[in-house]
């Protein structure tokens, strides 16, 4: 008997569900070693994590609130990676969107009803514009997108901090925070007395719209064609550079919306700790969803659950809260390995006996 690897042409649809679940399960098993290393009981720790994330209505809603920005950054990465535009810059684009929203939301001259729509539009535009910089650098100057988007994350973060400690600082605060947005600019709460705000709903709708865009429009088709084979796409008459550019802008806009939600629905200002790496988590989320916009939703909820649950676990068992960060990295790697099953299948064959 012998095992043989065969290449697959198409991978069956059930793999979209089975592979991420398998990858995550294996990750949780491997990472239980870290819980043991921290001197805690593995089952008690995972129990505390689960309870912290889903244990009661309040915790579950907190997980959903946390998932909102992650859905947007996950979508941002999923769209960009489809076109093989390596946007590692969702972090910076999120901050751009957040800053635009906080700026617009604090304007006194604007009519109250216009604030929320303007913040959404302005935040998406800011994220898109910030993403257009590395896109232009790529198509015009052949600058590597990974390097450019990463560098610009730091430019945006330090730029934001410079504004927050200088001209944009809230004079009433001792910290580098921006002034609060107006009450009328805050996203409505969907379910009193929780923190479930409009941004969570927008994230879900956003995922649906991106799915429609990717599967039902010519632009979506062009994005996928460019990602699969840019040369063939160009041969087929698709303006590759233009598609890459607008994919990047769309991706940045989605990341910008993550920032809008955090400002308008949760913090009502921008500050240094606005994003604990949501842009980078978006990469893990998108990969686990196999770049499928609808798949981004459960994937984002999972990582939101890990993040909120890890805090409960840390308080209950003393396992460092950074367990959540390890899970992110490990599940990305496990998912990558699991994806091999979409390319190959293992065939067991019995060899005919040699004469």
């Amino acid at each position, binding site marked *: 008997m012998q095992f043989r690897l065969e290449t697959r042409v198409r991978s069956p649809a059930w793999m979209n569900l089975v592979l991420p679940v398998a990858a995550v399960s294996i990750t949780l098993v491997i990472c239980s070693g870290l819980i043991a290393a*921290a001197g805690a009981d593995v089952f008690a720790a995972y129990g505390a994590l689960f309870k912290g994330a889903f244990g009661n209505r309040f915790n579950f809603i907190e997980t959903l609130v946390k998932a909102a920005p992650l859905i947007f950054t996950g979508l941002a990465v999923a769209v960009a990676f489809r076109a093989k535009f390596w946007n*590692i810059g969702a972090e910076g684009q999120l901050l751009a969107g957040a800053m635009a929203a906080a700026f617009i939301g604090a304007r006194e001259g604007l009519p109250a009803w216009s604030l929320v729509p303007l913040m959404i539009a302005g935040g998406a535009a800011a994220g898109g514009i910030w993403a257009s910089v590395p896109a232009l650098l790529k198509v015009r100057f052949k600058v590597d997108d990974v*390097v450019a988007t*990463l*560098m610009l994350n730091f430019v945006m973060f*330090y730029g934001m901090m410079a504004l927050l400690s*200088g001209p944009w600082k809230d004079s009433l605060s001792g910290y580098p925070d921006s002034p609060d947005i107006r009450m009328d600019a805050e996203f409505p709460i969907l379910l009193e007395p929780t923190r479930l705000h409009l941004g969570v709903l927008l994230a879900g709708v956003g995922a649906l719209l991106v799915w429609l865009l990717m599967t039902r429009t010519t632009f979506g088709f062009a994005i996928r064609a460019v990602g699969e084979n840019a040369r063939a796409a160009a041969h087929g008459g698709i303006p590759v550079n233009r598609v890459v550019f607008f994919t990047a802008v769309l991706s940045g806009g989605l990341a910008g919306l993550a920032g809008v939600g955090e400002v308008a629905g949760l913090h009502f200002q921008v500050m240094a700790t606005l994003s604990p790496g949501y842009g980078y988590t978006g990469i893990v989320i998108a990969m686990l969803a196999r770049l499928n916009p609808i798949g981004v939703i459960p994937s984002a909820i999972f990582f939101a659950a890990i993040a909120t649950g890890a805090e409960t676990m840390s308080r209950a068992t003393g396992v460092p809260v950074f367990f959540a960060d390890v899970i992110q990295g490990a599940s990305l*790697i496990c998912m990558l390995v699991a*994806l091999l099953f979409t390319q190959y299948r293992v065939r067991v064959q019995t060899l005919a006996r040699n004469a």
Partner: protein
Amino acid sequence: MSDIFEQIFQIGFFTAMVRVATPLLLATLGEMFSERSGVLNLGIEGIMLLAAMTGFSAGYFSGSLWLGIVVAAMTGIVFGALMGLLTVTLGLSQHVSGLGVTLLCSGLAFFGYRLVFGQPSQPPNVAAFESAPVPLLSELPVLGPILFDHVTLVYLAFLLVPVAAFVLYRTPWGLNLRTVGENPHAAASAGVSVAWKRYQALMISGALFGIGGAYFSLAQFNAFTFGVISGRGWVCIALVVLGRWDPWRCAFAALLFGAVDALQLRLQSSGVIDLPFQVFLLLPFLITVVAMALVARNARAPAALLLPYRKEER
């Protein structure tokens, strides 16, 4: 204006330039080796961070800073090998594998530090490496303090440049490595194991990332903080392009970045320009992007970079 120049471009500025460039030089040379073999190693940022943590911990508990450096290098080798498993053996996307390694290593660095040291009110620190002036040479006017009055790691890092150039251009090992990165099929038909070469390059790169990372926590500073690398690893990816995958040019690029970094530090502390200090912190990143825009058009990466190699595919 001339006052500013006088304040800034003193001997101390050039000394700082060399000091700041050292960890970047180590990591850039590491990245150059792995890219020359055909693998983009985006694990750089995370490996540097994790090694800064493990190296610091080893130095802290053993009392030997050099043991810290060794542990940091070993950490890098382990995760360089992991990168090899993912990109070489399994042939997975180099971009996503590298990001995965970085995320994993960063998580492990934070987790491990908290596990080992808890949350002390005073972060633990070590007595960092002390400057070891080279006898006689450090007495030279101007050049002495700039080049020959540093910690030992600085000399080693710069000595590595001619060594790397010699190994890459003048030895069969280096020739094979370059062939593997340019035309793996040709290398394979000449009897070179493409996979093993790439593993070697990735482990070398990991070791150099590790030493570069530990330089931050054991030489430049005397403690580990979560923001100790904060993008310096990513910068090295750009420095390799600016250095056109050549050890000498990479050293030049690292020194140039060191100059920008030293300049922003001086501008920050001089107080001549009244701006929030973060403006100066963003300068190195902005200048890196601009520099990339200027040279990227003419950059020619190793031909097999990013391409997984499978024997049966021709």
